[in-house]
């Protein structure tokens, strides 16, 4: 299937433990959006629902998720520096939206890319502190996670026993 070499056969996992990744979200900007959850995809079409520990990737194409020749799956970069070098620093509201970034722990099927990965499942593990006046305390409480500085990402991964795919 597809053009991505497969990892272990279905009977045996490649890793036991969650894979660490860094991503950013748009912050819910209306009361209606906040009722679903604070964290939304950049397209504002997909919500990380509050009260649900795991986010599951979806795709209408009906193939295995994440697809080999499809962009589906939960996106994340290997680390904070890679993300900011690639996407730039979020504007903090200049385009009408506010953003936060943070750490996810990913599981299930994962397609590994040069700078990050796309995952089948993920949960929010941490929110990065930044200079923007976004409701980070409320977001962290809503997703039952902590707020940490981006420079503490490496130590966070070590403490939590997270797998770093960029350090394999």
């Amino acid at each position, binding site marked *: 299937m597809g053009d991505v*070499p497969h990892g*272990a056969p279905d009977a045996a996992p490649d890793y036991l433990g969650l894979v660490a990744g860094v991503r950013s979200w748009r912050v819910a900007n209306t009361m209606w959006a906040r009722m679903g959850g604070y964290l939304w995809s950049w397209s504002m079409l997909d919500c990380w629902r509050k009260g649900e520990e795991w986010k599951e990737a979806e795709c209408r194409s009906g193939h295995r998720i994440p697809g080999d020749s499809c962009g589906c799956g939960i996106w994340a970069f290997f680390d904070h520096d890679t993300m900011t070098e690639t996407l730039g620093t979020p504007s903090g509201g200049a385009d009408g939206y506010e953003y936060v970034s943070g750490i996810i722990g990913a*599981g299930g099927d994962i397609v590994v*890319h040069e700078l990050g990965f796309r995952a089948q*499942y993920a949960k929010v593990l941490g929110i990065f502190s930044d200079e923007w006046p976004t409701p980070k305390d409320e977001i962290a409480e809503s997703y039952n996670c902590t707020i940490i500085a981006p420079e503490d990402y490496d130590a966070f991964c070590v403490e939590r026993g997270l797998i770093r795919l960029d350090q394999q």
Partner: protein
Amino acid sequence: MAPLGKPKRRIRVEPLPEPRRGQPLPERREPVREPAREPAKPEKVPA
């Protein structure tokens, strides 16, 4: 997929979320109810 660069390989990582691991739970089936029976009418005894 340009922001993440080219895909390199596929891996599988566990543990999976508990509710999604393994086979889905079987559908809960409602117990079959027998139709209510009418109470037996007393036989008419000729006077």
